């Protein structure tokens, strides 16, 4: 066997050689990268063969070209130097690993005329085996790192999915939910770009892109993309992600990417529904507050106690169908000793109707106090209501001015139900003279005034259509079953309180469990 001429005693030289090999093994195993490995291998060879020139080449998995591990420079597609040397002036080795990557070793002896001797060959084989083992360790560590990265990324996806769900459902966020979901979807699926298109009624309402500022998706963007959509109200939200990224170039999206996009879109859908319901609840709450305020105002407008009038009995009732009604009645003593009897019904209910009732009440009180005659008073009221009401709102009203001492009643009926006057002989007359409802026509309508004299024992009934048009469960009207005029005619001996109680009881019997459809209001006057 040829031997290298090392200038050492055999025993000392052998120990030195073994130490060098052991040190090389230790250092090679510390290598954390191919480049590092190349440096350690070159260093190990040079310790044993100071005159040698070492080249460690690397070809990555799936790659066709070799590169020099020392500096990463290209080394071609198949260096001839990797072929075994017949002259044995060089040592060559090629190792291919399970992941498809390869390492190529070339060691040339630059000693003048010096071939690679047998001892060197053994050492080089040993170093190559160490290098191979070290590279396997690098591969294992890399696989382990990739696995940890992959597991962490899955954990990240799950965590982000939960966080995004919370964030998109948070009200008042800076970023709209669909935009936030798009950002997160792009990030979690490694998409290079994405869009959410909101469309409705055949047109695109909004397109949001990530990264921001991109044009809408092109046909090229749609290739290999993933998409999902949902409809909310009249709008469709369409998500599209494109350009799955990786360190090794473009990739196809995976099933989990589609699942993530679907889940994020569902979160946006749920968030939009919640926002809508929340807005509705807030609106309802606001309306209830408005209604409570209006109800409180109306409660003050409607009389709690009617005045005591010598020689008369008077009783009234108001049962609104909602917490705020559109009916109004009152019995107002005037400074000159007369009494104003009023009943009114606003077209509509709720807060708008209550506001109009409030206007009527204030204006009426002011005109009565100023002593305005009946017809001009009604004309002025008409103008006030015309200006206060919207186009679809008007008020039917009856206003009577009673002189208690004589029983004389002057009245104007502005489009209201007939007021019933039961005479001493048992007949019931209707007080209908007047004109159009208040607020219907913005003009000085020539209201007509009626005049009657109420005798002792005679009754007058003012009411709203909530009584005559009360419906039972079969949608039949109270007045068609029990005509109010006839009902009033028959109750000739009752007190106003008894009459109203009997009327309400009769209404209840008729309507049964049917909901009250309109306000119920009545004012009953009897001269004793």
């Amino acid at each position, binding site marked *: 066997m040829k031997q290298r001429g090392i200038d050492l005693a055999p025993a000392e030289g052998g120990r030195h050689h073994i130490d060098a090999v052991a040190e090389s093994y230790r250092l090679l195993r510390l290598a954390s990268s191919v480049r590092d490995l190349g440096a350690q291998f070159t260093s190990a060879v040079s310790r044993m063969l100071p005159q040698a020139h070492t080249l460690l080449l690397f070809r990555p998995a799936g790659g066709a070209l070799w590169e020099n591990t020392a500096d990463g420079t290209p080394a071609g597609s198949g260096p001839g130097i990797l072929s075994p040397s017949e002259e044995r002036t060089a040592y060559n080795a090629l190792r291919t690993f399970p992941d498809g990557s390869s390492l190529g070793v070339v060691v040339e002896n630059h000693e003048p005329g010096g071939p690679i001797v047998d001892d060197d060959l053994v050492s080089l084989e040993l170093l190559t085996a160490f290098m191979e083992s070290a590279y396997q360790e690098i591969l294992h560590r890399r696989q382990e790192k990739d696995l940890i990265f992959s597991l962490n990324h899955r954990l990240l996806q799950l965590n982000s999915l939960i966080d995004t769900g919370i964030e998109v459902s948070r009200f008042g966020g800076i970023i709209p939910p669909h935009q936030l979901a798009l950002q997160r979807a792009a990030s979690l699926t490694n998409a*290079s770009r994405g869009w959410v298109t909101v469309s409705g009624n055949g047109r695109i309402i909004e397109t949001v892109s990530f990264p921001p500022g991109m044009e809408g998706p092109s046909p090229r963007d749609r290739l290999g993309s993933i998409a999902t959509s949902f409809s909310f109200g009249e709008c469709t939200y369409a998500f599209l992600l494109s350009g799955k990224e990786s360190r090794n170039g473009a990739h196809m999206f995976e099933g989990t990417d589609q699942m993530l996009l679907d889940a994020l879109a569902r979160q946006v859908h749920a968030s939009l529904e919640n926002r809508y319901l929340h807005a509705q609840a807030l609106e309802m709450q606001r309306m209830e507050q408005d209604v409570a305020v209006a109800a409180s105002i109306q409660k003050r407008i409607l009389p709690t106690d009617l005045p005591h009038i010598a020689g008369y009995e008077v009783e009234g009732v108001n049962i609104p169908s909602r917490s705020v009604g559109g009916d109004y009645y009152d019995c107002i003593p005037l400074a000159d000793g007369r009494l104003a009897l009023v009943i009114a019904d606003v077209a509509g209910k709720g807060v708008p109707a209550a506001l109009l009732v409030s206007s009527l009440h204030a204006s009426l009180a002011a005109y009565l106090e100023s002593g305005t005659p009946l017809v001009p008073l009604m004309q002025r009221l008409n103008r006030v209501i015309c200006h206060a009401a919207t186009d679809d709102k008007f008020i039917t009203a009856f206003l009577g001015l009673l002189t208690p001492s004589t029983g004389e009643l002057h009245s104007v009926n502005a489009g209201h139900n007939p007021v019933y006057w039961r005479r001493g002989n048992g007949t019931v007359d209707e007080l209908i003279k007047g004109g159009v409802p208040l607020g219907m026509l913005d003009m000085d309508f020539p209201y007509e005034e009626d005049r009657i004299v109420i005798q002792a024992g005679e009754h007058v009934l003012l009411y709203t259509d909530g009584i005559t048009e009360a419906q039972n469960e079969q949608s039949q009207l109270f007045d068609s079953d029990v005509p109010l005029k006839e009902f009033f005619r028959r109750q000739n001996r009752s007190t106003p309180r008894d009459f109203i109680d009997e009327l309400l009881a009769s209404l209840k019997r008729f309507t049964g469990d049917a909901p009250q459809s309109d306000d119920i209001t009545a004012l009953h006057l009897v001269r004793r």
Partner: protein
Amino acid sequence: MDQHFSLTSEVRDGRLIITTSGYVNNVGGETIAKEFDRHFAEGAREIIINLAASQVVNSVGMSFLIEIIERLEEVKGRLVFAGLDPAVEKMLAIMGLFRFAGKESTVEDAVNSFTKTPTHRR
């Protein structure tokens, strides 16, 4: 450079401060890595990456950041992130980056953190 990503860098007291803007994805991550490489070759071992204007990072971009951390680990250098959006901070935490890298609210805080715990310099 991608129109949706940009960076600036400065060396302050021997520390490299990279400030990014936009999506830290493959393009963004690679751009950061190249900037790091350039300064690393010149001896930079204390690095601050200011992500205040990068609210979205994907895992490909993150892999570049991990490589930077590994390169610095090998030479006992140190990376500190600054200006992290809460969502990005959580992502980096889950991916385990803060076991090997620091985080501070601002670049100034990051600079000061190096003063408190000096890094071994080559």
